[in-house]
């Protein structure tokens, strides 16, 4: 179980908090406190700018509060729905402003993805992987980010991107194949 997975008790408690917030907007503060940091970090890792992240985070929570009545439990935590709102807001920002997107990752993430495509995990393999990652398009890199850098489940990725769990799985494996092909070619 990773940081994004919750047990049934947590999900039940969260559903109660969501239902309370649906009835009274002031009750939304529990969810706001609970998820402010993770949403901020999610946005900061994609923008690399503190003030911009604060603006987008505030917009995300406003949209979430305005639309919370539409939220229905579909087997994934409320946070996945919140991340979906954040994901859409970030994409909207980059579309409107034509700004450079940031991809934040750790060295160990590169090692993991190197092993995933059955490459040798050494400095050369990691360098080649970085070059291959840079050749991916924006949509592909977002999936790699969610799956390998943030360790999210396929179900959660599906909710965030707005596709089915199976579709998320297929897309991720297609991107891995793409990476394998890129790695086989000479840079």
């Amino acid at each position, binding site marked *: 179980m990773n940081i994004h997975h919750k047990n049934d008790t947590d999900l039940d408690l969260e559903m109660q908090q969501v239902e309370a917030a649906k009835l009274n907007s002031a009750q939304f503060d529990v969810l706001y406190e609970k998820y402010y940091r993770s949403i*901020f970090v999610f946005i900061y890792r994609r923008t690399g700018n503190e003030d911009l992240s604060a603006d987008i985070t505030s917009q995300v929570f406003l949209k979430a509060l305005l639309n919370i009545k539409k939220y229905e439990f579909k087997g994934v935590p409320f946070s996945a729905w919140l991340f979906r709102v954040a994901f859409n807001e970030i994409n909207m920002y980059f579309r409107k402003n034509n700004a450079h997107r*940031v*991809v934040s990752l750790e060295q160990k993430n590169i090692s993991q993805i190197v092993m995933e495509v059955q490459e040798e995990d050494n400095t050369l393999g990691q360098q080649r992987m970085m070059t291959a990652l840079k050749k991916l398009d924006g949509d592909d890199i977002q999936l790699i980010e969610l799956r390998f850098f943030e360790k999210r489940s396929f179900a959660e990725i599906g909710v965030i991107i707005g596709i089915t769990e199976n579709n998320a799985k297929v897309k991720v494996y297609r991107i891995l194949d793409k990476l394998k092909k890129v790695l086989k070619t000479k840079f």
Partner: protein
Amino acid sequence: MTDLNFNIDKPDLPDDQINKHKDFKKLIYKYQLATKPLYKTPLHKFKHIRVFLIILLALLVMFIIIEVMEKEEEGAVKPAVPEQTIKE
């Protein structure tokens, strides 16, 4: 290939720095502003001055139309004064 900047091993912001942006009261204020019915929002509080000006202009045009219509109605209702013939 898209324009992507890769940040490797860049630490996340410390909690204190993130928390200074947290403001639930402001969120509720924005929420109330967004959900308040239009007719209950004072005109001067309209976010976009252009919207405010358009509403002001529409009200002005409506006022002028009503004034003109009232005047026309008054003119139509008023009976014509009969000419008096003076007997000598």
